[in-house]
């Protein structure tokens, strides 16, 4: 909630006035004037600044290392569909497509699943069930991605090939999305393994967010005669911005995930209407090709594609934040509870 303006002059508001005159002072000097507070504040300020410096230096290093490729290909790097290290011809579009679409598939599957898990654990399950289940879900988040990748090759891909993709092709085969050869390896399987990987993260965060909604909200809803379902909706509305944050966190992991995806996505830089066809992601191509890349232009192109991953992540996060803002704007009073 937004604190109402206080009429009575207090140290804090004097400090606020000083801060308005010289904004940087508020970062370095504490409101109370105590020495300890000043030092503490300075340390925190330094730590926060470090993050900014880190990001700035990363962008600067990537930009300078990709200069060669940026000069050579210019804007056509973004729209080029060819990736041929032997002929020194590079275009990033298939990788951008693969990254965005596989992450979208992952979100489409993971978000409803994670919300369901979290709602069950917080609102429905008795403690003796919810504690061990929550523990298991959080443990899933700790499994290294290469393990997911190997499991993907040996278990998930054959399972998709035998049981998931054929029925999808039968029922939705009239859509170009579900046409083509079924191999169990491709964009769809890549999206599914990402969904499995980000579900624990999203559900763990959403669980904490839901648990933070005051019990009084639930009691109020129940007292008004709301059903369990209606009460849950009240709780969800309260937690909306927190849930959105959890989803963005999951999306971030999906976009940057490397090992697990590369094992099952087929690693073929192409843009195909079919989700069953092999595809490729930005993070995967960097991990796959960087170690054996010789030639300055080749290395430079790989760094530039890393820079693009940075931008894609930035844009996707910004769009997500905008979406959240537009959704929660109407309910700003309640959304802040989380």
């Amino acid at each position, binding site marked *: 909630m937004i604190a109402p303006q206080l009429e009575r002059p207090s140290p804090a508001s004097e400090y606020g006035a000083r801060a308005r005159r010289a904004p940087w002072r508020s970062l370095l000097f504490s409101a109370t004037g105590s020495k300890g507070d000043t030092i503490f504040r300075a340390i925190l300020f330094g730590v926060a600044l470090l993050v900014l410096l880190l990001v700035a230096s990363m962008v600067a290093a990537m930009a300078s290392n990709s200069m060669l490729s940026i000069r050579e290909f210019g804007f056509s790097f973004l729209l080029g569909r*060819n*990736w*041929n*290290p*032997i*002929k020194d011809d590079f275009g990033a579009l298939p990788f951008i497509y693969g990254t965005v679409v596989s992450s979208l598939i992952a979100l489409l599957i993971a978000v409803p699943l994670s919300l369901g898990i979290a709602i069950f654990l917080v609102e429905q399950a008795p403690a003796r069930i919810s504690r061990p289940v929550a523990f298991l879900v959080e443990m899933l988040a700790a499994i290294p991605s290469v393990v997911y*990748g*190997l499991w993907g*090759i*040996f278990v998930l*891909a*054959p399972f998709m*090939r035998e049981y998931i993709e054929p029925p999808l092709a039968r029922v939705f085969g009239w859509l170009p999305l579900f046409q083509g*050869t079924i*191999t*169990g*390896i*491709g964009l769809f399987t890549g999206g599914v393994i990402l969904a499995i990987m980000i579900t624990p993260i999203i559900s763990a965060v959403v669980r904490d967010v839901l648990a933070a909604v005051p019990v009084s909200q639930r009691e109020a809803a129940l007292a008004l005669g709301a059903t369990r379902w209606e009460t849950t909706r009240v709780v969800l509305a309260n937690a909306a911005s927190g849930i959105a944050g959890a989803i963005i966190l999951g999306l971030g992991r999906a976009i940057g995930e490397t*090992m697990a995806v*590369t*094992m099952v996505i*087929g*690693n*073929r830089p192409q843009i195909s209407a079919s989700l069953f066809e*092999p595809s*490729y992601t930005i993070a*995967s191509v960097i*991990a*796959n*090709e*960087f*170690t*054996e*890349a*010789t030639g300055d232009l080749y290395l430079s192109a790989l760094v530039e594609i890393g820079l693009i991953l940075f931008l894609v992540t930035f844009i996707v996060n910004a769009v997500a934040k905008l979406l959240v803002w537009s959704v929660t704007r109407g309910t700003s009073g309640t959304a802040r509870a989380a």
Partner: protein
Amino acid sequence: MPESLLARRTRFLTAITLVLALLVLYGCSGGGGAGSGGGAVRLQGAGATFPNPLYQKWLSEYGKLNSQIRIDYQSIGSGGGIKQIKEQTVDFGASDAPMSDEDLKSAPGQILHIPTVLGAVVLTYNLQGIQQPLRFSPDVVADIFLGKIKRWDDARIKADNANVALPAADISVVHRSDGSGTSAVFTDYLSKVSQEWSAQVGKGTSPKWPVGIGGKGNEGVTGQVKQTPNTIGYVELAYAVQNKLPVALVKNSSGNFVEPSLDAVTAAAAESLATTPEDLRVSITNAGGANAYPIASYTYILAYQDQKDAAKGKALVDFLWWGIHDGERFAKDLQYAPLPAEIVKRAEAKINSITSGGKPLRSQ
């Protein structure tokens, strides 16, 4: 009571911190002790992943013989090995493919190629119910990987495999997705046997594959092939042997179908002696000779001919000498083909030519 709980927690944290601090101190003193042991020489190498198991074995065996010399090898990939030796951040590099003329020219000094062992690339496949190994002609292999031969019951595959009940199914091609010396050797071979491959794709560690899906590493390709019926892929010989994968016979340039084996790989190197140039940078794919397996290559250690540090240079030269002589006996157990005798002689000459400040290091 909350206070006592807090106090207990604080004490616990302090104890953990102390233990950690002790561990760190112990680690530091241990590291310092090893480094300061009376004039010990440390060598740093980096490069190809393919020979890494052998090099690690060499380092541990050589370390037992020479406690004064400590050598580290990091398997960061051939590309990284070439980059680091050029930047002189390592004492020796390692690469599966020889360095290009361009790379050699841009290096700050003369870099020598010392061959250490040989490796081979084999075709593996997943065809249910077929026991005897398949046979492939070079043009058939190229056309399968070009996507021109699409089905297992194609007449050209049948022609080499008369008694095999090949399935009426589509061929799924699996290739390496990571940049790899294995891909470089395989595409080098395909470029030699198929003009169309040479023109359309070429050779390199990460070619633009006309068809197929990519698996990461030997294990990724193997996983894909094992899990998917009617696939064909290529992996390192060592990997195929250790995992008992079905491997195909390939027709060599003498017209014989040769089973991939260590002897057949050494034979390919021996048959290529006439075409091996003075600097030992050579491709031995599609070698002549009745018993030569055609998809094979050397792997090299890269070192500067002029060593800046005489003590380090001496240690490196002795290690290389030991490697191509005594070290070769560890090769076969780890599924690497040892060098033919003639190449050992020519590598000796290379090692003997390494100098520091104009003085040869070997004869010291």
